[in-house]
């Protein structure tokens, strides 16, 4: 078991990162920490994808010195997926930050529980 984990240490680290991020996103009360958790979670998946996509001894898929044998290059798809994932992650983070700023302006705290308690006492509630 330990040997398998050591042999696949990149994937193991990625899953641990995912777990840390997931737990932070779920249980942290502070909105900024939740956001950091979300980014760690996404990074875990990207690390997993990047490590699975890389094969030791092979090169980036750009033809160099006239070598066209596919066995000499790595598959470019995982890297493409990571790039797409990063774009998605950045967009989501931006939206979440905008929402956080708006909530902070209104409630003057980043603690989600406090915000919830304050909002319950507001007159705009129907």
């Amino acid at each position, binding site marked *: 078991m330990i040997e398998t984990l050591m042999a696949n240490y990149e994937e193991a680290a990625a899953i641990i990162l995912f777990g840390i991020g997931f737990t932070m996103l779920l249980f942290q009360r502070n909105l900024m920490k939740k956001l950091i958790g979300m980014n760690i979670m996404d990074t875990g998946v990207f690390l997993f994808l990047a490590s699975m996509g890389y094969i030791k001894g092979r090169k980036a898929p750009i033809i160099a010195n006239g070598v066209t044998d596919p066995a000499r290059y790595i598959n470019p798809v995982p890297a493409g*997926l990571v790039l797409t994932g990063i774009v998605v992650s950045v967009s989501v983070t931006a939206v*979440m930050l905008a*929402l956080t700023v708006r*909530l902070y302006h209104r409630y003057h705290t980043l603690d*989600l529980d406090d915000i919830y308690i304050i909002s319950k006492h507001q007159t705009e509630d*129907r």
Partner: protein
Amino acid sequence: MEAVKNIPLFAIVLSLFSGVLCTMLKNKAARIYTVLFECALIAGMALVLIYTLQTGTSFTYVMGEFPAPWGNEIRAGALEAGMALLFLIVMLMSVIAGMHYLDDMDASRVHLYAALLNLMTAALLAEIFTNDIFTGYVFVEIMTLTSCGILIVREIGRTTLAAIRYMIMNLLGSGLFLLGVVLLYDVTGHLLMVPMHQEIIELMKDPGSALVLTMATGILTLGLAIKSGLFPFHYWMPDTYGWATPTSAAILSSLVSKCYIFLLIKIYWRVLGTDVFAAMPLKYILFALGLCGMVFGSVSALRATNINRMVAFSSAAQIGYIYAGIGLGGRYGWIAAIFHIAVHAVTKSMLFLTTPRLAEVSDNSLLFKNLTGSAIRDRDAGAFFLMGSLSMIGIPIFAGFSSKLLFGIAAVSSASEPMMLLLMLALALSSVLNALYFLRTVIRIFRDDGSRKICPIGGRWDYLMPMLVLIVINLLLGLASGVFVGWIETGLSMFA
């Protein structure tokens, strides 16, 4: 007729383009453009549905001429086209019926709201038609962002708070979905659904790979279950639907969550295959959570003191029905689940478009205690709420009855006796609870306590017309359910 094959891709691309275009238009122009564009999309999807039903097969649109297993594909069959058609009609009707409430919005935002609706349409169509699992993920995220956008357009604190909670749950779901997709790609080496399926059949012969596949499917399912609000992940629903504008609440409850479920069904059918899915213990978990959702969603609805929260909890119960059907499997289990997606989309949008009208004549309050006699003050909204409630309870001639009948048939035709008994029991209990909380509300809104002056507000065509269309579809689903079941069966035959 071959040109019809271009419609799904063009619909997605043009919707994306329309989203950008609407940001540059003036409010009125953006509104009119969105309505006309949705009408054009509906016509297009009707053509695709007719084409697929006539040819009896689905078609694949290969983008950039790169054949499988490379490139990206869109695949359209009768089920996808029909579902897209229904979703677009519900979206259009929700937009038209809720137009009146958009006037209350900050005037500088209406065109942005239209832009978000167009982007959401693109995501909706892409999730329905895509044949590539990673494209599915990208559009799931676009759907999440646009859903959040149409939610926070109502600028009050509780809406922003609801949006944050909605986003957090959705991001948890998206993260899990992405991990599931990556794991599946890792073991199969493909992103297109059909080559993935061929690889999975081989991999299932090896116990080690089968375990990884089961885990990946479980993670992916958990992600989409959180996003669609399956019990016990449904607690974001009441705040989200309760604090959104009427159009947003109708779209979020009837289309967005259903779209995720449709994507999940597609993954089960096209990527895993129904045989592989039936062999997984996952189906029992989905079945059990579905049953719990049916009962506990209804119990929460019964305890609600606010009409929107009640309708939202009722959505959680209805999502439970769909997952119970998926978990039950078998011919009728799948048919019942897909039929219920359509029924719930039509009925719930109608209910969410009715409640703000009832509140409007009750000092803008959604609390039950203030809603007494509201249906007498606004007879149109009262009548529509009554019909929606009767459908949800499962009274014959309405769509809800056919749906519950199909679940009953699915339970009876199930090979597993305990599953049959449990589903029948949950169906009976949930129906009784449905009747309790909907009829209680109906009695309250129709009871005139004489405390308020009766001042019926006049019927507006932009409210009456879309609501009548939704009722007609509801009655069609109820009275001609055989036709729709036939469509689902034909669709499923070309779905895998």
